[in-house]
């Protein structure tokens, strides 16, 4: 006896897959070779899914704008920030960061001469490919 469930599921078989597509249809034998081919333009891959607006990626820190007020350290839930007393700037460990953007909210920023409003020292970038073997690697510590 055909039921509604069967109908729905059979219909689904003829629809296009709902999930995001992999860069290539089948797993390549040689990933490095594939990347080089893509760089040379010989192979086309499915483009990556764009990040939504207001996406909270890796924190971007601009020491020029930092006034050393330590407010970000006070609100950071993950204790990802460290104050450097010599330079009166902060050091941010991305490996500890949990991407809540509270530090961005509290950052007062600094007004450089000739500017109308202060610009924040911290902002969330769109970078999300930040996996690394070493949590203290150069890519994951910002100062």
């Amino acid at each position: 006896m055909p039921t509604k469930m069967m109908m729905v599921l059979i219909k689904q078989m003829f629809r296009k897959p709902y999930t995001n597509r992999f860069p290539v249809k089948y797993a390549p034998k040689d990933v490095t070779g594939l990347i080089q081919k893509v760089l040379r333009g010989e192979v086309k891959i499915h483009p990556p899914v764009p990040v939504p607006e207001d996406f909270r990626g890796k924190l971007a820190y601009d020491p020029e704008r930092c006034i050393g007020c330590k407010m970000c350290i006070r609100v950071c839930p993950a204790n990802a920030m460290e104050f450097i007393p010599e330079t009166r700037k902060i050091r941010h460990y991305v490996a500890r960061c949990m991407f809540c953007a509270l530090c961005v909210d509290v950052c007062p920023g600094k007004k450089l001469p000739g500017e109308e409003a202060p610009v924040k020292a911290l902002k969330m970038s769109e970078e999300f490919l930040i996996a690394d073997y070493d949590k203290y690697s150069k890519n994951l510590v910002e100062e």
Partner: protein
Amino acid sequence: MTTTYTYSLPIGPIHPALKEPIRVVAEVEGERVVRADVKRGFAHRGIEFMGMKRNAIQTLYLSERICGICSISHPYAFVKAVENAIGMEAPPRAQYIRTIIAELERIHSHILWLGVIAHEMGFDPLLYWTWKGREMVMDLLEYLTGNRVNYAMYMIGGVRRDLNEKKIRAIKENMNYYRQFNQEMKDVFMSDPTYKARTRRVSLLTRKDALELCAVGPTARAAGLRMDIRQDQPYDAYADMDVRAVVPQDITGEVMGDAYDVTLVRLYEIDQSIEIIERCLEDLPPGPILAEPNLIKLLMTIKRSEGEGVGRHEAPRGEVMHYVRFDGTRDGPVAWKVKAPSYNNINIWGRVLVGAEIADIPIAVGYIDPCMCCNDRVAEVRRGGRELPYEEVRRKCREKTMRIKREVMG
């Protein structure tokens, strides 16, 4: 003469069928369960203690990580508790946005449950189909808040991100999709004879048992109790929405309190959530979204205030309650207590598993949608034999020192 033996069937704490650690010991006689016991405390992480060492804003983000699925239920209860304690109220616009996010989360959590229960029964294609539908609301939440889970949206005294025209339009489109998708889900789940046969009269929970064991949320509503925090103690925008608890007697006219009734309640609650979200969008008031935009000032206010507060929220699984106390010396809670809905609901396993078949255990376990990491707030370690008082330990330590001293010194 024959003797009947009962076998004890331990499930968990680490078991391939369980997603989270909990131990269910069922005593079986043949295929029937004659006694069941639950042991919990395997996922205790000491979060409340961690929260008591941080300031209130840090604790808010810690509370978001209590549960892996409901990223907003715990922050919601926590901000209500802190606002209650320090006497602050969120602006109307923030209250409406909070309600919208909380209801969106209810939609995704209920669809998740429908998929999980289908998976437990062996309808795996149905799991993928329901979760396909869930992906839309996850994308919407990512669009609204910037993250699929752990939205970081709430703040004491308001919300952190506003809704603009584009986002409101996206929510409206999504709600149209879900109205249609939920209709399809209702057709699929309620018309399927196998599903009905598999869930009717399975894990029966009577009204009396539900009251005695303090069941909450959809589990209690499926047993016919009209209880819902949004109806009994409306907070934020729910006060304007006139929410009524969804109970099976209003849908089918009879109450069984079984897994089928829970499915009905959850399916119709998705409809209710869609309605609430659409009404919230219609009446969305203008104005600020934070009562105190300066977070450092907010922390100072908390540091100065003394008192205690309770926050309750109707999470997708039931009532979640947070209790906080401030003593005026530090900017974080000196006491923080979390009570998650699964804490009440897991108690009913001992009752509903009795008389069930072994093959019904996954449904009985799954139908309350348990969340172990939410409910494990205390770890109890039982040792065999008597407890060793610390004085005894100290005495032994000194004796050993003396013994070694004698050996060494000769």
